[in-house]
């Protein structure tokens, strides 16, 4: 009974991490940038929504503005940082250091503007519970699951069935060819960053509503997500999403048996070992960038 | 009868794809053997197998009568086989002379203990190896560029640097992967002379080469590969006169140009 509830909570967290994972993977497989600042965008989105609610805006408009502002931040990062670096043929190391810098900038802007402490959303429905089978889920948890699955399905559909999605894949598989055929990779990359950043705001807000928000915890979310991306096999959105759920469930169950933050150490050790044993991941579909 | 280098039924599959399919031929000492065939014939894969970068799915590579198939890359170099790469793989942030020093066969000084505990000796090693490297750079005609960064010299010079690097390993058998591709007419002449020079130094050469004129000019033997198989071995005039092979070769080449 308790175990079932814990697994259900893990599944919910896993869905949220899964969205971070698939959006991160989408950026990485398209632009080749290891976009660790994604965690900063995640933090930023949650705080924007929190701030707008404090200002008296209703939830849905606040969430919508948060999503749009995250998309804008993502687009600006691509346009003014990654694109500039790519134009100067910066090494992957330089790209990565810049991304780390952006992560610190975003997290600490939030920490300075609001506070480095834990904040909670002031929404009456955040504590409402519903019985699903034999487990209890809060309304925000249900929203996390529903939106995450929709985002997964939507992103897969977008990537394979829409013209823009196919164009993005064409650019990803061969940027220099895309340049010749006037697909304009730089513009495509900006769109990709905007989409990924907008989408990542959704689980950021909902998880924040369900639990609380804090400027630095998104690093843990990102780490789980990136481990899921690698363990699931770079290039497989489903693989990343499934692994995100598995990791979150293992993490949750291990809390039953291990005291304190040992469960974190335990879970990451397992998955790092897994990546070492099988660096190509479980669901790897095609050869991908790996410098 | 064991030869100098014997490729004995070597196959290599990647998933379902057979990159090499039962290749067998021998390389005689002090001769230049050219590997020819259309792109995708498996020539570079064969180089990877010989130098231990890839393990063959089946078959054996025998060098001077000893099987080397299971050996580590490093051990294979020590036995006397060195290679260049199609994409050069020069150390672009190091100077030309340092590129050669890194590849010198002599391991003296290549450990932290010597560097830290015997600084004067370590200095002397650097000086001695710099001289050795300069001698090799003179052979390939790059001594005047010794202090330049490898990224700053011309493409033709980078290819010559690759030759100096394989010479540095002191190997008897040199595998050259497309040494003349992408070169200007002048640089091409220099490279062809360079290959003659290597033979006069007593090296055995296995060369991947596309230009049939150059193949005739430099090779004693030709091995023709297609789709992972060896279709023919022999002297250049016979192999390159075979109509069927020419069709495969130029048919393939023309097909590529069209695509």
């Amino acid at each position, binding site marked *: 009974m308790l175990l079932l509830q814990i697994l259900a909570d893990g599944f919910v967290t896993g869905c949220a991490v899964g969205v971070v994972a698939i959006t991160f993977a989408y950026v990485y497989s398209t632009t080749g940038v290891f976009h660790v600042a994604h965690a900063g965008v995640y933090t930023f989105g949650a705080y924007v929504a929190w701030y707008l609610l404090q200002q008296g805006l209703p939830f849905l408009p606040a969430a919508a503005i948060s999503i749009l502002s995250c998309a804008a931040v993502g687009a600006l990062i691509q346009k003014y940082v990654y694109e500039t670096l790519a134009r100067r043929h910066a090494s992957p190391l330089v790209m990565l250091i810049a991304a780390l810098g952006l992560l610190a900038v975003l997290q600490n802007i939030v920490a300075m503007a609001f506070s480095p402490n834990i904040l909670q959303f002031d929404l009456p429905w955040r504590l409402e519970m519903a019985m699903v089978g034999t487990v209890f889920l809060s309304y925000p948890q249900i929203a996390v699951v529903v939106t995450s699955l929709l985002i997964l399905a939507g992103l897969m559909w977008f990537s394979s069935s829409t013209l823009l999605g196919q164009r993005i894949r064409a650019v990803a598989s061969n940027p220099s060819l895309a340049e010749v055929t006037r697909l304009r990779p730089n513009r495509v990359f900006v769109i990709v960053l905007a989409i990924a950043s907008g989408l990542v705001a959704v689980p950021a807000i909902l998880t924040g509503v369900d639990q609380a928000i804090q400027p630095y915890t998104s690093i843990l979310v990102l780490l789980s997500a990136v481990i899921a991306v690698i363990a699931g096999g770079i290039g497989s959105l489903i693989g990343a999403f499934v692994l995100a759920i598995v990791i979150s469930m293992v993490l949750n169950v291990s809390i039953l048996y291990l005291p304190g933050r040992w469960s974190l150490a335990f879970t990451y050790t397992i998955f790092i070992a897994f*990546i*070492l044993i099988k660096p190509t991941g479980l669901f790897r579909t095609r050869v991908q960038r790996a410098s | 009868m064991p030869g100098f280098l014997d490729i004995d039924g070597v196959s290599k599959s990647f998933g379902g794809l057979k990159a090499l399919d039962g290749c067998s031929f021998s390389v005689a000492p002090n001769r230049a053997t050219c590997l020819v065939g259309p792109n995708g014939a498996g020539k570079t894969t064969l180089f990877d197998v010989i130098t231990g970068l890839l393990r063959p799915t089946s078959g054996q590579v025998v060098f001077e009568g000893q099987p080397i198939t299971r050996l580590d890359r490093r051990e294979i170099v020590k036995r006397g086989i060195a290679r260049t790469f199609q994409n050069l793989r020069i150390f672009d942030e190091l100077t030309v002379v340092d590129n050669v020093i890194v590849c010198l066969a002599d391991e003296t000084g290549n450990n932290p203990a010597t560097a830290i505990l015997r600084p004067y000796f370590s200095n002397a090693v650097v000086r001695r190896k710099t001289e050795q490297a300069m001698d090799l750079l003179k052979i390939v005609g790059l001594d005047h560029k010794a202090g330049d960064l490898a990224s700053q010299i011309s493409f033709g010079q980078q290819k010559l640097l690759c030759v100096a690097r394989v010479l540095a390993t002191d190997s008897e058998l040199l595998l050259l992967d497309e040494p003349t591709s992408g070169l200007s007419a002048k640089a091409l002449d220099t490279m062809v002379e360079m290959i003659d020079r290597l033979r006069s130094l007593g090296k055995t050469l296995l060369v991947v080469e596309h230009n049939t004129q150059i193949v005739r000019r430099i090779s004693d033997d030709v091995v023709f590969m297609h789709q992972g198989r060896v279709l023919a071995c022999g002297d250049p005039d016979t192999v390159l006169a075979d109509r069927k092979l020419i069709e495969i070769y130029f048919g393939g080449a023309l097909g590529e140009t069209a695509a």
Partner: protein
Amino acid sequence: MNFLLSYVILAEIFAIMSISTNLLVGIIGIFSVSQAALMGIGAYTYALCAMAGIDFVTATAIAVLICSAFSILTSLPSLRLAGDYFVVTSFGIQLVATAVFINWSDVTGGASGIPAIPPPQQFGFTADLPTEFIYVSTILLAGVSLIYWLMIRSTYGRILHAIRIDETAVAAAGRNVLRAKLGTAALSGAFAALGGALFASFLSYADPTSFDIHVSVLILTMLVVGGARTLRGAILGPFVLLAIPQLLTLVELPSSLLGPARQFVYGVLLVLFMLLRPQGIAGKRI
């Protein structure tokens, strides 16, 4: 006076850390973001030894051995995972280490850490005051710099650089890449141990937040701003970066904002340097 001395001592300690990071990130190309974890292991090891009455040199030597071993262990993934992928495991290692520092309270003192760590004591001499401690930190920094310098200028140093640029080509030339990587990791760990031991003995405490992910990023920032791949850059960086908190005190900020403001400035510096001057103040192109 003591204020300035403390600044110099801390900068020297972080210069040792920056050189340790340079060996991995700048020279051989293992992108580690877990140097603070190694520093922490060194600090805790030293602290426990020193509290047990072991003298400075022996306690530091024990820390060096343990950190070298851990550094080899944490670098092992780099043999299988290239570039970006390794960063993930390195991130993970850092977070796992922090979790261990916090949770293994019997040994580490948990979140509050270990207080009252004795200062360096050797041959009846105690470096209690900053005026005395500066000799210890300066001598160790000089030693670390000398070792680094001797190694990089040798033929071995050229091989280490070449491994970063193209590992396959180095192996194809018959060099032992594995041994070079693990050896460099061990040396980097040894330097980190010295940094950790000095840190613990100078501040007389060791707690988990002194060795968390933010500190790892700070050390990386020091190296990158000073200039990776060179000794002078690695030493210069910490002096520049540690001056920033002092400058921030000139701005009127509530104390709760000091930490975020500092890290914000570090982040901005990282991005700006990558955009405008990726070689740092005195380094080489990375």
